């Protein structure tokens, strides 16, 4: 399918505007969309066109209004004013159902999968085949298989797997199949690469290019500027709810895009002086940890993190990092081996003992399950693990004034954008939620920081800031264990780097001896 027949197929009206004559007509037109939330204008009079067979990257700082705009397009939120046209027809979009019928599908920033159900059930939900009123999973499965085969291996999934058991990259795949299964002509991806390793991102891009070449129009949101240059055909930039510019990959640079987004020029590299490692702070010896299903996730691992050192932990998903960090922070039982924190045995210590008394900051991989309470306010979330000690409590009562002051300080320092400190955390933009968790866990004077994907979903300016903070804390003598799927992050920050592969730790060496290539090989399990 190329663009023109697609345009006919979906009944585009003929427009005779001179210079548009030989161009395809936009398959999606956003006109004057404004969206108010209590206390904030998330989108202000937005105009945006999307053409068949193109990948449009939408950029913007945390809270710029990207997700809000996409939620409006896919029918989840009604706009305060403005309209959306699909194939020239005004979309009276009252629910996602209407948007799906118009060929719009969206992969949400926070995946929308029912975790207790199977892959197949999730894919067909809302578009099930039935025979005499009874579900026909065999036919559905054939349909899904056929769809996946058309993409030659890039979309391989196991339809019978339960979502709960799948790593993030696989869940993303399920979301994409779900979108394609509904025959999406307009595919919206809200920060899909935040949870992917570079290899996985590469294969996602291959898939997106294939779809584009078949005429699908794609909107792609990311904070990783390198990816934008790699995959986008066109770029639109949002700032504070407004479209502030358009550009093309050939005509711009990472620096220029960052400037457009933020309105100033952030530095994209972290100045880093070599650290002065002290005595070991975290000592892990022969540690073995099991997954919930009993398989071995972490297999007899030993390493140390010293004071004043950042140990980078790279590796593809589902190689045991999550379980390792779970065990180190007391969230998951240790099967054998020992963990020593500052000389004390904390192998079987509770999360509370490790976190509060041991003084470990923990930025969890999945903030939704371990890092925040959505319905609590910004201020409350900032003292979740501090609220039972001075200065936030006295005589067993919370001291609201101290809590508010603390929140004001943290929000200013970490640039957490909220309309008020009493706003429920769930209504902040994704990146701002992440910044809040980081702000809470990065406290001065803690001996150890365990950070997993600390800059997940965070915009370039804030990445820069968080990286600076991590380096500063290291310089002040903190030991840092940094796990990330983002190789650039590891390479930029770590003093020593190790790779987790199938539960083993391989290639532990000083950062100076490691480059992207070698890391890539190690992550594929090839020791250099």
């Amino acid at each position, binding site marked *: 399918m190329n663009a023109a027949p697609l345009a006919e197929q979906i009944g585009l009206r003929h427009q005779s505007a001179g210079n548009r004559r030989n161009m395809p007509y936009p398959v999606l037109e956003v006109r004057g969309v404004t969206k108010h*939330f209590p206390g904030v204008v998330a989108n202000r009079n937005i105009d945006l066109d999307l053409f068949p067979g193109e990948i449009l990257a939408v950029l913007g700082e945390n809270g710029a209004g990207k*997700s809000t705009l996409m939620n409006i397009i*896919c029918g*989840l*939120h009604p706009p305060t004013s403005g309209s959306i046209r699909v194939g020239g027809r005004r979309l009276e979009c009252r*629910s*996602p*159902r209407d948007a*799906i*019928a118009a060929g719009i599908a*969206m992969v*949400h920033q*926070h995946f*929308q*999968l*029912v*975790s*207790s*159900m199977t892959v197949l*059930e*999730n894919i*067909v*939900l*809302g*578009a*099930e085949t*039935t025979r005499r*009123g*009874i*579900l026909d999973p065999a036919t559905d499965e054939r349909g899904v298989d056929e769809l996946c085969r058309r993409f030659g291996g890039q979309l391989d999934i196991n339809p019978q797997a339960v979502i709960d058991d799948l790593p993030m990259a696989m869940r993303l795949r399920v979301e994409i199949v*779900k979108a394609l299964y*509904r025959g999406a002509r307009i595919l919206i991806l809200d920060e899909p690469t935040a949870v992917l390793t570079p290899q996985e991102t590469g294969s996602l891009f291959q898939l997106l290019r294939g779809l584009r070449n078949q005429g699908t129009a794609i909107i792609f949101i990311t904070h990783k500027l390198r990816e934008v240059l790699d995959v986008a055909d066109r770029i639109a930039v949002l700032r504070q709810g407004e479209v502030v510019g358009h550009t093309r990959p050939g005509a711009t640079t990472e620096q220029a895009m960052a400037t457009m987004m933020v309105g100033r020029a952030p530095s994209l590299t972290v100045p880093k002086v070599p650290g002065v490692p002290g005595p070991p702070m975290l000592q892990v010896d022969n540690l073995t940890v099991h997954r919930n299903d009993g398989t071995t996730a972490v297999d007899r691992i030993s390493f140390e993190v010293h004071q004043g050192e950042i140990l980078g932990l790279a590796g593809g998903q589902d190689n045991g990092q999550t379980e390792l960090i779970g065990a180190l922070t007391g969230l998951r039982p240790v099967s054998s081996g020992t963990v020593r924190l500052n000389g004390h045995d904390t192998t079987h210590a509770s999360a509370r003992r490790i976190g509060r008394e041991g003084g470990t900051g923990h930025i969890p991989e999945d903030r939704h399950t371990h890092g925040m309470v*959505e319905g609590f306010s910004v201020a409350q979330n900032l003292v979740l693990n501090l609220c039972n000690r001075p200065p936030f409590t006295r005589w067993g009562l919370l001291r609201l004034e101290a809590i508010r002051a603390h929140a004001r300080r943290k929000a200013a320092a970490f640039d957490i954008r909220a309309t008020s400190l009493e706003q*429920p955390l*769930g*209504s*902040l*933009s*994704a990146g701002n*939620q992440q910044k809040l968790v980081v702000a809470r866990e990065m406290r001065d004077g803690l001996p150890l920081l365990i950070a997993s994907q600390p800059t997940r979903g965070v915009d370039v300016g804030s990445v820069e800031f968080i990286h600076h903070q991590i380096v500063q804390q290291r310089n002040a003598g903190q030991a840092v264990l940094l796990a990330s799927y983002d190789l650039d992050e590891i390479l930029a920050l770590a003093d020593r780097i190790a790779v987790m592969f199938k539960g083993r730790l391989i290639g532990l060496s000083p950062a100076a001896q490691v480059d992207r290539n070698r890391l890539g090989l190690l992550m594929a399990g090839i020791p250099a």
Partner: protein
Amino acid sequence: MAVVTQSTARFAAGLSLLLLAGAFLVEYAPFADIQPIRMLFGENVLNFALRAAVPLILGALGGILCERSGIVNIGIEGMMLAGAFAAFVAKNATNHWALGPSLLLGTCATLLTGAAMGLLHALFCLRFGMDQIISGASLILLSMGISATFFDENTVAVGKLAPWPVPLLSAWPVIGPLLFHKPPITYVALLAVAVVGFALAHTRWGLRTRAIGEHPRAADTAGVAVLRLQYLNTTLGGALAGLGGGYLVLEAVGQFQEGMIAGRGFIALAAVIFGNWHPVGALGASLLFGYAQAVHNELLLAQAPFLPRHFVSMIPYVVTVIAVAGLAGRVRAPGSLGQPYLRETEA
């Protein structure tokens, strides 16, 4: 989840088989005349167990429909009471009719009233954003108030549903009289378990219902009309629970008394939980609770000298408490149970 569901289903099947096997023993084995065995497995006690279980089964199914859609229902008791009272009023108003049409009208009244209670619950929770626990409690108070106000103790309804023996099957030994020589609502309850269980697993409605109870937002973004389905299921659930109350008037007792539901709605709720929100599991739980009630009855009748009366009276409740407490942590409620779904207040 799957594992626990299976284990509750296994429990239901195991308990039923055990009771039937006991019944055969009593019928055929040489030691059938031993008093305790007859007391535990005789036709009397088993018939009573099923009679006691039917309202629990229907109430629990009503609860399941509602809660699998994500809406807490502690108001089963109220729905049952409303159903019972409506059955009585309709039956009583048509005492002069032939018995059949009068009972049919009673059944319709009980279904419709139950449905109305379900719809009211949905409106309170979904439209007016009332807390789901409070809404449930208000249903109980509402039906208690209405039935107490309008119930006239001097009126007497005439007649009740008689057994409809199933041809051929009812002639089977032991099983026939136990299962196939029953009044119609008993059949309806047992069939409803199968139908709801099958539909939840194998129909479009079931898949979507499971999805909205677990993660309504995911279902919404996949194009499922979440609210509509919640209204539908809560209303259907109300009708089933109402029938559970109507059963007491139309089939078991033939009369209405104030406070006649006597906590059965709450025991049905316990059955929902014990059955892990699955119809077959709830059937097993209802049978267990019904059986405990029946054994308690037999012991009281027999005036067993070895057990003080008050301890005997505790049996059904102790069984309920042990059953539900013993399962704590092993059952899993629908993921979004009790959290109203609003499109806009999440990031």
